[in-house]
């Protein structure tokens, strides 16, 4: 039994009382953990505040007040519903941090703060929740971007899939930098920071009914350090960056082609794909170009700055396999076309529906 005092609404200590310690090893989330009472306060304190500890959370307010730098800010929000929750190389907690950090970073901004919202299914093991929170805390500390406010809800069994996390991030955009998906111009060079498809294959390898032995780890990582080096190397010649998450490289290039009203020509042989990823995709009838990434980015840059940008990317640990994979071209149809390793051409299209293995 933990005999620590509880506080009532005004914050003063009213009495010493018995408090049953949260049984993180064997306990499960129940509806009381989302009901706004002591149980919820204890869950938040023992799991989230412990794992994510920082000055703002310690104040215990329903919001956090922070200093904002001068100039323009970037803001993003992202919901994470990955299944399974734990996969080789990561889990939903670290993913929720990296996802928001990267979405901010793709504007060239320095990510400053995050918020996190948890929707937890009744019956979810406390040990898994603690593991997710700790992973989130570790990712947040490693990135130097604290989670300064959050929210917790518990829903009845069957109304969620374990846990869903939504993160929101804010960041400061350096003066003079104006990256946007509509800025690609014909002739601009297209780069990717490393091998594609690692995250999607790592997650699929552990998915129910689809388990296969796989050495591939998710590439989930915070990219703002790499981005800072890229901004330093290319400056205003950098047109845009984007992390090719859901829908993979194919969807991302099609999005940019639409926004910028250009086409893209890419070279299949230049696109880095790990042999294990290629093999898994082959087995499942999937195209690595459609498979999700969580620690990779693509960049479009004015041609004169491409060599310096490539060099800067390769000098960073998260960009050491960076490659030039193609260029933007004039095309009023806004097609993304790829020259195959055979020399034939084909369209790289959006994924239609969900990417699913074929029958035969």
């Amino acid at each position, binding site marked *: 039994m933990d005999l620590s005092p509880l506080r009532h609404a005004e914050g003063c200590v009213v009495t010493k009382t018995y408090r049953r310690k949260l049984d993180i090893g064997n306990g499960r989330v129940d509806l009381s953990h989302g009901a706004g009472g002591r149980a919820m306060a204890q869950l938040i304190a023992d799991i989230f505040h412990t794992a994510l500890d920082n000055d703002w959370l310690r104040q215990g307010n329903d919001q956090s007040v922070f200093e904002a730098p001068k100039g323009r800010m970037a803001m993003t929000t992202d919901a994470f519903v990955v299944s399974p929750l734990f996969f080789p190389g990561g889990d939903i907690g670290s993913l929720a941090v990296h996802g928001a950090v990267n979405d901010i970073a793709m504007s060239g901004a320095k990510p400053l703060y995050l918020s996190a919202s948890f929707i937890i299914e009744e019956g979810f093991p406390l040990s898994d929740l603690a593991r997710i929170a700790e992973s989130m805390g570790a990712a947040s500390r490693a990135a130097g971007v604290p989670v300064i406010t959050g929210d917790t809800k518990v829903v009845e069994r069957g109304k969620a899939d374990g846990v869903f996390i939504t993160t929101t991030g804010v960041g400061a955009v350096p003066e003079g930098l104006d990256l946007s998906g509509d800025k690609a111009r014909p002739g601009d060079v297209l780069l990717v920071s490393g091998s594609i498809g690692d995250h999607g294959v790592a997650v699929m390898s552990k998915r129910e009914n689809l388990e296969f032995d796989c050495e591939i780890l998710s590439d989930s990582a915070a990219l703002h350090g790499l981005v800072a080096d890229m901004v330093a190397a290319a400056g205003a010649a950098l047109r845009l960056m984007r992390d090719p998450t859901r829908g993979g490289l194919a969807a991302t290039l099609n999005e940019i082609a639409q926004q910028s009203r250009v086409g893209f020509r890419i070279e299949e042989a230049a696109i880095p794909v790990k042999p294990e990823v290629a093999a898994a995709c082959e087995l499942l009838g999937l195209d690595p170009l459609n498979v999700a990434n969580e620690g990779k980015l693509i960049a479009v840059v004015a041609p004169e700055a491409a060599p310096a940008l490539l060099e800067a990317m390769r000098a960073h640990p998260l960009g050491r396999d960076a490659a030039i994979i193609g260029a933007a071209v004039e095309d009023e149809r806004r097609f993304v076309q790829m020259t195959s390793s*055979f020399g034939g051409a084909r369209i790289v299209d959006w994924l239609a529906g969900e990417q699913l293995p074929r029958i035969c």
Partner: protein
Amino acid sequence: MKYVDEFRDGDLARGLARSLATSARDDREYRFMEFCGGHTHAISRYGLEDLLPPNIRMIHGPGCPVCVLPVGRIDAAIALARDPKVTLCTYADLMRVPASGGMSLIKAKAAGADIRMVYSTLDAIRIAEAEPSREVVFFAIGFETTTPPTALAIRLAAQKKLSNFSVFCNHVLTPAAMRAILAGEGEGVEIDGFVGPSHVSAVIGVRPYQFAAQQFNKPIVIAGFEPLDVMQSILMLVRQLNEGRCEVENQYGRAVTHEGNLKAQAEVADIFELRDSFEWRGLGEVPASALRLRAAYADYDAERRFGVTTPSAKDNPACECGAILRGAKRPHDCKLFGTVCTPETPMGSCMVSSEGACAAQWTYRRFDTQRVAS
């Protein structure tokens, strides 16, 4: 990737392209049907048509089990899934196939039907074991390639005495479809030879295709699915025609033997028997072209168990899937292609399956209107 990269070597492909350019005679056209959707997919994905001389034309055949399943069978599956006690297990490809009234399995699932996507027949068996209060029906579909796993599931269900598992059997046979196409030749279809099914032949061997060479004088090359396999097979077909030969050749010797997989054949023969006739989308009723469960396994036959009827259902009248599946028309010939019919809003089956001719054309080669329309 051992055993794959070897068959995707760009230099070898260019060498084969040079051989094709010198082998193909200028004074004639070569019209080859690739029967399988897998070949269609490989041709489109690797841009192989760019490497072929202009007088070699590929015609996309009916070799996609999703594409050839008639609307009535999907309607029947949806009706089964709407039975509150039924859990319908299906391969994911089928989920978006248009059924009657704008319905599909994915829409029926969203409306509350218990439809689950599985990756193998054994997943369906596991669900039946785990949920004994549910009637688990496996929506079996496919050519000879996917029939042995269905047979295995029925065998396992019998061994385990699973009383809540059954199969809605839609397995169809490729030689019968090829015969139907050849019998209908002249109705807009002109074929000089076939790039033959390979994974199917891994099961049934080479022999079942000899009728095409012997009775219809069409050469066949059983071809692997890798791009170099396809290129080499096209070259083998060109050489056969140039030399006046008409044979069933086996390019895919690393996986296909003359006799095929005898064990799988025996298992299939034990559990399934021929239907007198079966409707194919695009080909209509084709005699002796599909399988059903033998009477000894009637307990596992969803059609008998649930009294399934296959309602008559019509495709969209403007949809040219039927002619495209027979090779009589090409995707761009269809007024719906790329207008109202796209992979996001498929009107016909050829646009639904990733291996369908229209989906492959739209996804990989829709810039190529000139060549296709020529």
